[in-house]
């Protein structure tokens, strides 16, 4: 039951990620990248058949203003609490959480 993992259409988990972040943060920029295929051979992934386990997400939103980094990440993780706890759910969510101003400084 091997499936192609690159150039795949958006899966259900990816869709959930986009929808909830958009609702919560009204981001000026949102990038969601499914990197699961890079991690399939890793030890912790043995026995997992889901092709939606590892994501890289970049959120640029005013709503992060005045918020420490850990709080930003905790809040985003909290949006996906269920998906991160269930078997075969999200295993890793690499986050970049910046405000538009912080992005300009770089």
């Amino acid at each position, binding site marked *: 039951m091997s499936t192609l993992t690159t150039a795949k259409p958006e899966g259900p988990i990816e869709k959930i990620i986009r929808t909830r972040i958009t609702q919560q943060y009204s981001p000026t920029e949102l990038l969601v990248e499914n990197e699961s295929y*890079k*991690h399939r051979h*890793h*030890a*912790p992934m043995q026995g997992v058949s889901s092709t939606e386990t590892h994501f890289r997400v970049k959120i640029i939103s005013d709503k992060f203003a005045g918020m420490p*980094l*850990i709080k930003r*990440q*905790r809040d985003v*993780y909290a949006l996906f*609490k*269920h998906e*991160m*706890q269930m078997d075969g759910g999200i295993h*890793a*969510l*690499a*986050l*970049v959480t910046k405000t538009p101003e912080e992005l300009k400084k770089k």
Partner: protein
Amino acid sequence: MFRPFTSNISRLPAAATSQFMRLPLQRPLVAARFITDRARSTIDDAIKQNSLVVFMKGTPDEPMCGFSRAVVQILQMHGVNEIVGVDCLQDPEIREGIKEYTDWPTIPQVYVKGEFIGGCDVMVQMHQSGELHELLVKEGVLEADPDAGEFKRE
């Protein structure tokens, strides 16, 4: 160099630990994962006994996950010579327990002087901003480098 963290607390059978289970505060019942007493005390000991400890997958010498590897490399880059790692892959109770302990859903997790600092993304961003070096010096994990640019400003 890698110094393995070993616990001398013997493993209790699941039935024996269940009566010690504590309900964490501020967490909905359905999401509670019931960290075992053994896991909690092992984690407590690890973060109390070491000024810096990384809960990770694999060991500092042989990380089993890219995120754990990145954290180890960042710390090494900053001159942390002795990284204490707790290999969560070796212990399912710690692997699940640390997530509840910190209220942080992913591994790796870095603790400095008993305090949770962050996971991989936070470490990368603190490294880039210079905050990580500052923190490591402030907490005595590293000695201040008089030549380091970010310390001349103050």
